[in-house]
């Protein structure tokens, strides 16, 4: 993507996000029981949707890395895996924080250890440990270990998704793909879909930037290693 295409994409994403904000705060009707605080829903669900897509991307890239780890496409997959995990953690953190800000006025508590919240917190911990493993380990095996962790870690995503269907929870029952009688006002659906689309476009754009940064870092580390090797050879002579 060249500079002009990037600028154009950034402008389109900014317009989409502004439209999403307008839909969520001005257009969507006020929920009868909770009032305006329910408008957190549009950012809460959109954040988690992007987080799940990022964790899925991380899984796919990790599998590709494990299959092709000694090739240049393996390095590219590794860069994509770490970038997607980082963005997934950012969106998951926002989703959790928004959930807490929503819970306090509605439930009277910031947090409860119900299956949906606990499984989401475990998911967040798994990917934070993935990033810490990548950041703190000096071992050359760190990307391989992290890729294996990513594959096991993703198993928590379907548990998070299904938790409100499998167990009785404090967290509300599903309003999308839920049981008969559940559902949203059509204007609320529009606001939700616009925000999910806007967050997804924003997430993909930032993922692309983060991926470019990781590739630049990989190239820099390769150049630094080659440079050190040349210096060592020159000293040996």
């Amino acid at each position, binding site marked *: 993507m060249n500079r002009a295409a990037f600028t154009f994409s950034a402008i389109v994403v900014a317009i989409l996000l502004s439209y999403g*904000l307008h839909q969520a*705060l001005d257009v969507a009707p006020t929920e009868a*029981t*909770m*009032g*305006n*605080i329910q*408008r*957190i829903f549009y*950012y*809460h669900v959109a*954040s988690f949707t992007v987080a799940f897509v990022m964790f899925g991307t991380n899984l796919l890239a990790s599998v590709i890395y494990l299959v092709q780890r000694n090739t240049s496409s393996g390095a590219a997959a590794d860069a994509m895996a770490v970038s997607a995990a980082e963005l997934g953690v*950012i969106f998951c*953190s*926002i989703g959790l*924080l*928004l959930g807490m*800000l*929503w819970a*306090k*006025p*509605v439930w009277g508590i910031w947090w409860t250890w119900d299956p949906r919240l606990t499984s989401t917190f475990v998911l967040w911990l798994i990917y934070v440990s993935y990033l810490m493993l990548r950041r703190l380990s000096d071992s050359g095996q760190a990307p391989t270990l992290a890729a294996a962790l990513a594959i096991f870690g993703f198993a928590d995503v379907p548990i998070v998704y299904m938790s409100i269907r499998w167990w009785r929870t404090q967290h509300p029952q599903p309003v999308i793909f839920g049981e008969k009688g559940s559902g949203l006002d059509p204007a609320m659906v529009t606001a939700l879909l616009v925000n999910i689309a806007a967050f997804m476009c*924003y997430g993909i754009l*930032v993922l692309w*930037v*983060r991926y470019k*940064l990781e590739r*630049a*870092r990989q*190239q*820099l580390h390769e*150049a*630094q290693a080659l*440079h050190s090797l040349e210096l060592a050879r020159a000293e040996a002579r």
Partner: protein
Amino acid sequence: MDTVRSLQHLHAAYILTWCVQLGYVLYLVRSFVEVKREAEELKK
């Protein structure tokens, strides 16, 4: 239900979202500058 506190929470949620996202974008920009500087130092 629409108490002052719940409206404060709504505003805090939207502001917090964009503070975290903008902070992350700034971190990315700073990291790019750092990588570029290190690459230029290596060339010298």
